């Protein structure tokens, strides 16, 4: 298997975190997932400050971003990332329950790389997460400076 990129999951709901990890586990992608529980923590991780001040250098290969988050919401996180000269290279995928057009339009306007509505049906959900994981963590070549773990063959 080729190298696996790090996935930063920004999700406040523990049930959603568990379901997402379960879906990623089936394809052995779960080890490279970092979980942050709100927008503020996600930004701390990206800027290596606060609780994440000591983490090793490098950006995630992709950021899976929920929109409805405590403290700093998803759109604000997205805006901050896309306005930052260095962070804007990180691919951001909005992963949300909202099918509302205004969320979608706002996200694309801010420069999101993909917008995925979490399907209610579990099989579809697993498929969506798996395909996202495979594409962004394995197939896609992330920008220079991203963390990638060499995969075991």
């Amino acid at each position, binding site marked *: 298997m080729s190298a696996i990129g790090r996935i930063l999951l920004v999700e406040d709901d523990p*049930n*959603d975190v568990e*379901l997402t990890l379960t879906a990623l586990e089936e394809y052995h992608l779960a080890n490279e997932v970092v979980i942050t529980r709100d927008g503020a923590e996600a930004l701390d991780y990206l800027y290596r400050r606060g609780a994440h001040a000591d983490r090793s250098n490098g950006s995630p290969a992709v950021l899976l971003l929920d929109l409805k988050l405590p403290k700093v919401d998803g759109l604000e996180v997205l805006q901050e990332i896309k306005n930052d000269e260095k962070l804007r290279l990180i691919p951001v995928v909005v992963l949300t329950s909202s099918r509302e057009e205004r969320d979608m339009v706002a996200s694309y306007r801010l420069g999101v790389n993909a917008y995925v509505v979490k399907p209610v*049906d579990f099989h579809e959900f697993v498929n969506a997460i798996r395909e996202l994981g495979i594409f962004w963590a394995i197939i896609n070549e992330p920008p220079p400076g991203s963390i990638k773990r060499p995969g075991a063959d």
Partner: protein
Amino acid sequence: MDQANLDGKRAAHSRQPELPKPLFSIRRYGLSVLGVSLALGLALLLEQFHFRDVEVPLLLFAVAMASWYGGLGAAVVAWALSCVGFDYFFVEPIHSFAIAPRELPYFFVFALFAALVTWFSTVRRRVERELRQARDDLEKRGVELAASNKELEAFAYSVSHDLRAPLRHMAGFSELLQKNSAKVLDDKSKRYVGVILESARKMGALIDDLLAFSRIGRAETDKAAVSLAQIAEEALAEVRRDIGDRKIVWKVDKLPAAYGDRAMLRLALVNLISNAVKFTRTRTPAEIQVGQAPATDDQIVVFVRDNGVGFDMKYVGKLFGVFQRLHSTESFEGTGIGLATVQRIAHRHGGRAWGEGVVDQGATFYLSISKSRQS
């Protein structure tokens, strides 16, 4: 908005001088007296300069002004005063309240004319006040409507966000339970888990349909000249994808051009056609016709007719309600929102939707839309 602010707005809206009642009355009657006196004074002054017969228009003007600004009471006072003044100063014998017999017609014509002016002015004033009142009411209702629309939007938004997540968890963890604990679950428990899953799926569909329905009410219509024939073709293609190997005899008439929102009209036709497909399931062959009924002066009417299970006209009023169903979910699936959506789309196009049916002999559903580009 706080109360003080609201009150201030209301006061500004009523546009009436906020005087205590007695003071207001004095001002009204004072206006009559003043107006008539001024008119008389001016007429007498002009008479000094040998201007003749200016008193009639001046007095009429004073009466009109008094009844316009003072209302009925002030109008009557002004009328009486001007009659008396006219009699005293301008009707022979001058400077007396007596009226010479030959001057009587002249005086009565004046009195009648002044009364007429008063009456017109008062009526006009009342109409204007009613109109203003109606406009203020309308303005207020508009503001309320905008607020409630906004609330509805916020509601739909939070439904979209917050109701889906717990559903996904119900479905997800039931699925995991089914998969990971298949060995320890007996048949009954497996069935229970199945019911949970199915219910979660159904509720997801209900929420999606309800949101789509509310979106049609909220969204701006994007109207343009469209070809109903082309829209019907697209709708048919979409429905046909899901009919499998069923035998359906299609009859599609020539449809006219129309003015409307393409996506909405397409959704309406998809709903009507897929309904026809659904309720002809027990027929072989099923016959479905998409056609145009005779148009009226300002409406285009299209219909979808089938030879399916039909319905009892007794329940026709229930057909277009949200989540109203005439058949059990076991015999015909669906959330019961399709026709409500069609009705709403028709309303947004200045038309309506209605149905005709006979039990076991098929149904016809009509959709009318306005030809006008205004509605």
